[in-house]
């Protein structure tokens, strides 16, 4: 098991390196750079800039170096734990995105827990009570969940809260709590604000999980070893929970792994829609303004998050399925 983990970790490294190059390339694809953005912003407010000051700025930010040098600078800084400097915010990137990253991870994790807790029992019920009224209803809800993506749900949620509750929503804390020191009250406040975004984010994935669980379970219930279990005289509940669900869980863990990118994507975009400080809003600005160290670091962290998530999913899979473990 340990060997398996180490192998996987080692394989991640070259992928990460190439990914970082790709990220840098993507960020620097626009023909402009940050100074161009500054100039455009300045022009909007009426002032103009001359070539000399532009050149000076470029030199100051290191933007006059060839691209590969800029890249190496960034990587070099990363290896020292220095995430670079945000031109836009005039601050080092690290402390800037710290909280945002934390909330992104928190939201994604909470949604994942939500998904599993809700989807599993519903999926099992749906499969064992096939074609019942509740099953059809759940299938329909499942379809709806598939068709309405996170940001749309977010919009609907905004709409409902605007229309019916007349409350401003958004943000992760009530006014005043954000800057307060951590305490039980603060944690509770955070929890309250996180509930709805978690549900919204998790809903699409829950619907998919339910459908897959149902399909898998139905498939497995038709297999021979289930008949064998019944032929031994076991109670139906035991047959389902001890044998069928156990085997059905395996592919579900793979599906879980595939959900992780969706969760991160969703957390990103939901942050923009609901004005929650995930990395979403920051990333959007940074990309448009070509604030390259900020954008690059956020993207890199998103990739790392994804890889770590996949690794954990694979470890869970190996732990649960003895066939993989003994390979």
């Amino acid at each position, binding site marked *: 098991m340990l060997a398996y983990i180490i192998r996987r970790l080692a394989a991640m490294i070259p992928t990460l390196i190439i990914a970082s190059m790709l990220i840098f390339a993507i960020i620097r694809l626009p023909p402009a750079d940050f100074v161009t953005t500054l100039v455009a912003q300045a022009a909007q407010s009426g002032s103009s800039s001359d070539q000399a000051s532009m050149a000076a700025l470029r030199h100051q930010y290191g933007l006059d170096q060839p691209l590969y040098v800029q890249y190496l600078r960034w990587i070099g800084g990363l290896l020292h734990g220095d995430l670079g400097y945000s031109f836009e915010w005039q601050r080092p990137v690290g402390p800037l995105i710290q909280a945002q990253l934390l909330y992104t991870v928190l939201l994604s994790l909470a949604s994942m827990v939500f998904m599993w807790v809700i989807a599993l029992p519903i999926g099992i019920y749906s499969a064992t009570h096939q074609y019942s009224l509740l099953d059809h209803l759940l299938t329909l809800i499942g379809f709806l969940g598939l068709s309405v993506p996170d940001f749309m749900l977010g919009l609907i949620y905004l709409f409902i809260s605007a229309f019916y509750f007349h409350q401003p929503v958004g943000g992760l804390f009530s006014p005043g709590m954000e800057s307060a020191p951590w305490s039980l009250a603060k944690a509770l406040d955070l929890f309250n604000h996180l509930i709805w975004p978690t549900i919204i984010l998790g809903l699409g994935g829950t619907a998919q999980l339910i459908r897959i669980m149902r399909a898998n379970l139905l498939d497995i219930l038709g*297999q*021979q070893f289930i*008949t064998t*279990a019944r032929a*031994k*005289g076991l109670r*139906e509940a035991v047959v389902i929970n*001890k044998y069928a669900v156990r085997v059905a869980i395996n592919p579900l863990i793979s599906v879980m792994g595939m959900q992780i990118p969706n969760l991160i994507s969703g957390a990103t975009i939901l942050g923009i829609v609901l004005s929650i400080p995930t990395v979403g809003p920051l990333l959007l600005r940074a990309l448009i303004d070509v604030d390259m160290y900020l954008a690059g670091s956020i993207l890199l962290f998103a990739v790392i998050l994804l890889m770590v998530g996949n690794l954990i999913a694979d470890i869970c899979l190996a732990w649960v*399925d*003895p066939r993989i473990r003994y390979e």
Partner: protein
Amino acid sequence: MSQPLLEIRNLRTHFFTPDGIVRAVDDVSLEIQPGETLGLVGESGCGKSMTAYSIMRLLPRSARIVGGQILFRRRGQTEPIDLARVDPGGDLIRDIRGNEIAMVFQEPMTSLSPVHTIGDQIGEAIQLHQGVSRAVARERTVEILERVGFAAARQRLDQYPHQLSGGLRQRAMIAMALSCHPSLLIADEPTTALDVTIQAQILELMKDLQQQFHMAILLITHNLGVIAEMASRVAVMYMGKIVESGDTRTIFHRPLHPYTVGLLRSTPRPGVRAEGDLTPIPGSVPDPFAVPSGCAFYPRCRARTRPSCRSPEGIPLREVEPGHFVRCTLYDDARPG
């Protein structure tokens, strides 16, 4: 003649599908004496497996027993119970399954749970039916594994099915079935998925255990060689009906029904001088949704001689000599002597 252990009378099991009704088991009558082996022979899809599932009440959702009786004599009881009337999800049938009637299936790789150890799977049945603790069940599991020929049984307890060879897996299945000393073992194609040499070993094992446990076996197969080896009596099924039944020697040396004749003629037998080529039975099994009226074998029969073969009331099963039954118009005038 002693009381039969299992007596099936006019069993009818139908499948209800969107495309029509399939009469998988169509008026089947059998009986098995304690300790004897009855073979059930036929092509794929003739209903032999469905007969077995009907006995165990393990039919798929779209199938139902629509008529007939399955009379089973339980241990220590004088009167048989009708398994066809028992609640398929109730405590009674679950008490019998794995305990007094056990079943062994064709493909041990798919018939055993891939994520549980064999010790767990076998011990579970013991714990359930014999009401003992896990530790005791574990001991008994080792015993039964040794009995079916596992070397180093204790170490094997914690292995998973995919870690065993095909022959060992089938032995494990047999161990699981026999763990509670059932009075009837239903074996559905127990050796079909195995290599020929392993087949012979498994058959030997089954014969041996049958003697030790004084167990009856309902042996379902399409392999006539296995029947010849194991069964004292045999019933031949075609399209849900028994077309011929009797003791094995008689059926093999003097088959009466054209289908049985065809089966025997299409199988090579060592020691018998070949008289010409092997002759397969022409055509194939008809569409189960469009079974011809009268004798179902008629379109493929080489001895079609009478219009009564097509009679809509069907052809009755007749006892043409003691213990030998045939369902064929050729023997309409025969009477047991």
